């Protein structure tokens, strides 16, 4: 890339189309304070939904522009990088933008009833404002091409996430300590990340990811850069809940309001994984010896451990939401495993699993929330027999559950197939076998839910009524999506391949 001198501002975006990257962030970001200023409860939800829907539209438009493997570079305020902040959209992050905004747009109609039942009315405006901020943060993390800007967005999303989790306190006061724990660990993680960025800045004198990549490529690694790598991986690892840095996750997902759990499980850890992908493959280089050793000998065993340990714990849970949370930790293990393979198929597996697991977990958490709405909580002995009283909700949970196992015909199968293929291609036999063996544990914990739902009599004192339509429709959209993406893989696998290609082209991919 020709780094243009800052004085010669030639690329001032003028048309709406050229402004899309910044609108992507500005729309939800501005909507959040608007909600609070209006303060009207009747306007809150429509504004939130509109902002999310517009974001979705923008992200689809962006994805279409970069689907062929190109990229869009947007310079904020016309300040060219490396001094200015650059937003850079390529296939990898456009794909993530679509995922996050689509999930948000589907979850919001669901959230309306769910939040109304779980969060006190007087908190609703602030709740949705936080939701939009969290959404903005996640989108920002993904879209920006500036290292420090990533940190800022990470903190925007994290701070609002802490508040969102604490909003579950109306149902269970442990939401507060869960939020507090997450705040402590999340801040440590973000600070580690920013230390890593500091080291990179020290070594390269720039914060623009593409520039950093270029300079590392020119000058090679040194100890400062190694330290930066370690700090960034650990910092983002905390946010992504890579085993054993997942300790905040189960409590947070269990006690947060159901809609929040669904949104976070589907998007938050995914954004962090994306940052790791971006740094591992674009900024540092895949052939960076130190890095591949660290990945193979530290992260890979951790990923495998996550797959087994977290799944094993999930088997013994008695609360559906907590079980899903532990299963998330295990599934993140699969994503990390794909990264550590350091091959194109491996990265494809990670990216496609980001998407597929996102929709699967969103559906499951939404289902859990719908059950909790009628049963009062999502403990197995409360939701048992709900297969008869809430047949539609339960059927959607079954579909999403099968996707979690990775049964063919569902989205989960696609990612598992690619992951095992990647491991076999690389000749990592044992790893391939471990992946399939660990998914046997998924069979056990998912099947426990099925048995609970269908093979027991409904518990006393539960409301025997199907969930409201406004919750059922989003739930079924997600459930049907898991089936659809189990067959039509053009969109998911195709985009993941393009994205992986771009990422693996490493520095050159960033520079074009």
């Amino acid at each position, binding site marked *: 890339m020709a780094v243009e001198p800052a004085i010669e501002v030639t690329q001032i975006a003028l048309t709406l189309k050229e402004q899309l990257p910044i609108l992507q962030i500005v729309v939800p970001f501005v909507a959040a304070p608007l909600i609070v200023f209006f303060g009207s409860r009747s306007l809150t939800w429509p504004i939130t939904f509109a902002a999310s829907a517009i974001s979705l539209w923008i992200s689809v438009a962006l994805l279409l522009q970069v689907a062929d493997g190109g990229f869009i570079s947007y310079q904020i305020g016309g300040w060219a990088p490396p001094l200015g902040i650059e937003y850079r959209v390529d296939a990898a992050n456009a794909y993530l933008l679509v995922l996050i905004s689509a999930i948000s747009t589907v979850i919001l109609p669901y959230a309306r009833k769910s939040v109304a039942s779980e969060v006190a009315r007087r908190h609703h405006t602030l709740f949705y404002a936080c939701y939009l901020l969290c959404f903005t943060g996640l989108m920002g993390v993904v879209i920006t091409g500036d290292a420090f800007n990533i940190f800022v967005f990470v903190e925007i999303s994290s701070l609002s996430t802490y508040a969102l989790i604490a909003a579950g306190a109306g149902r269970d006061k442990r939401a507060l300590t869960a939020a507090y724990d997450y705040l402590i660990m999340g801040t440590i993680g973000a600070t580690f990340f920013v230390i890593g960025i500091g080291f990179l800045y020290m070594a390269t004198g720039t914060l623009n990811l593409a520039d950093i990549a270029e300079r590392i490529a020119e000058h090679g690694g040194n100890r400062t850069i190694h330290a930066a790598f370690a700090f960034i991986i650990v910092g983002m690892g905390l946010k992504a809940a890579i085993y054993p840095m997942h300790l905040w996750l189960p409590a947070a997902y269990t006690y947060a309001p159901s809609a929040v759990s669904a949104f976070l499980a589907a998007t938050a850890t995914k954004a962090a994984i994306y940052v790791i992908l971006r740094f591992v493959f674009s900024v540092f280089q895949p052939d960076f010896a130190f890095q591949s050793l660290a990945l193979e000998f530290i992260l890979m065993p951790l990923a495998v451990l996550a797959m087994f340990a977290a799944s094993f714990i999930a088997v013994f849970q008695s609360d559906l939401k907590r079980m899903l949370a532990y299963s998330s930790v295990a599934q993140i293990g699969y994503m990390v495993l794909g990264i550590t393979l350091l091959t194109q198929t491996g990265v494809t597996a990670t990216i496609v699993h980001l998407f597929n697991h996102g929709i699967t977990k969103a559906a499951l958490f939404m289902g859990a929330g719908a059950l909790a709405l009628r049963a009062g909580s999502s403990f197995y002995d409360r939701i048992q027999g709900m297969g008869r009283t809430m047949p539609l909700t339960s059927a959607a949970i079954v579909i999403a559950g*099968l996707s979690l*196992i*990775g*049964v*063919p*015909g569902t989205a989960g199968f*696609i990612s*598992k*197939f*690619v992951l*095992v*293929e990647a491991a*076999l*291609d690389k000749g990592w036999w044992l790893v*391939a*076998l471990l992946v*399939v*063996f660990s*998914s*046997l544990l998924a*069979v*056990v914990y998912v*099947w426990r839910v099925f*048995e609970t739902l*269908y*093979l027991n009599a409904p518990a006393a004192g539960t409301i025997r009524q199907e969930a409201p339509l406004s919750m059922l429709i989003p739930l079924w959209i997600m459930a049907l999506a898991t089936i659809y993406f189990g*067959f*039509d*893989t*053009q969109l998911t*696998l195709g985009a993941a391949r393009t994205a992986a290609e771009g990422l693996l082209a490493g520095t050159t991919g960033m520079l074009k």
Partner: protein
Amino acid sequence: MEITTAIILSMLVPFGATFTNLIFHDRENLRDGLTLGAAIVTFGLVLTILAKNGSATSETLTLFEVFPGVDIAFNVEPLGLLFAVVASGLWILTHIYAIGYMRGNKEKHHARFFACFSFAIASVMGIAFSANMLTLFLFYEFLTISTYPLVAHKGTPEAIRGARTYMSVLMGTSIALLLVAVIWTYSLTGTLDFAKGGILEGRVAGVMVPLLLGFYAFGIGKAALMPFHRWLPAAMVAPTPVSALLHAVAVVKAGVFTMMKVGIYVFGIDFLAETRASEWLMWLAAFSIIAASLVAMTKDNLKARLAYSTVSQLSYITLGVALATSLGVLGGGLHIAMHAMGKITLFMCAGSIYVATHKTNISQMTGLGRVMPITFGAFMIGALSIIGLPPMGGSWSKWLLIMGAADTGQWIMIVVLMVSSLLNIAYLLPVVARGFFLSDPENGGPVREAPLLCWLPPALTAAGTVALFFYAGTIQQFLMPLVAAN
């Protein structure tokens, strides 16, 4: 009608029946009538395909490209068509029988039962017509999932335990082994299509060939190869129509059918013969045949005895593939049809006895033959077919298998097949003998058959085993393309 349309419809019609069952769940006659209609239409569709296509291999119908070079795709070839004809034809009879059984026995949750049943049949059609290993695997798993509620149907702790065993063995083997085998194959060849002569030749060599075959053979848990046979006896807690159609015909045959597909179209018989990769499988199948027969002799519960008999008979088909010779393949293919007809007769008889007398153990059935002559007569004919005596259909497939063994010089296998026949006699005929020739005051009285809908279907299938004896040549001719090129 185009063949491709017929293929799609043959899956959609039973799939649609799933929904009509759920929608009209409280209108018994309409619901059961619609399902019967679906069964007849499905059989008609399969016959249409048979008439149009004969034993050729049809064009491939591609629906989705899932992975590069691997699609969800369907086509017609002789083995699959045979399987489809058997399964859809017997579905009609079983459905009639199931109506009688479920109503006569006052079972609950009819709608759920028939919905899952129809879904299972749709999956079987998918398996039969799949054009590559991925499609087959897809429907293979659908079949496991759709039959799980049927096994757990009674909802008793025993049923739930049985269903758990069923699920964990079938799902476990398919995910942990079959999936690995499939992806391994894909990783080696870049395709999963079923191609004449196999796709693996030249792509894999040495000890990897038997290893890959091992992943397939054990991964196909539905073939009930020992030591992964436990699910089949466990599944016997299901209502008898399920045991009859699914666990004597559809599910287990889907297993051995997959085994044959893998042998013929993924490895290729010549490749197996060349590398001698299937020799260990042959010995294991032989062990399964004998061991399961011996276990069957110890079982007093009639359905359990039949289940072990099925385990043993399934290994005949696996043996047919493992012999890696044309005659063995033909024998195996033929045995799919022959054993299906015979075993469904036996199971339906067991169900009739249960409906009429609520007896499950063989020791309680003394003298019942005089009370239920048609049921016991049908049982005897079915048993003779399983044993392999003329003029029942089972004799031909066993004959071909023995020829196949002789062809490859595996004399021990001939002995195994012979001994197995003797064991069959030892565990099946006593049931008949006890029913007809001994008497028990408790089981006396005038002729008192089960309801018409319960005794008629087994009588028809018993007649079918005799008919198959005379049409075996036609079926063998029909299967010839499987081995013609070799």
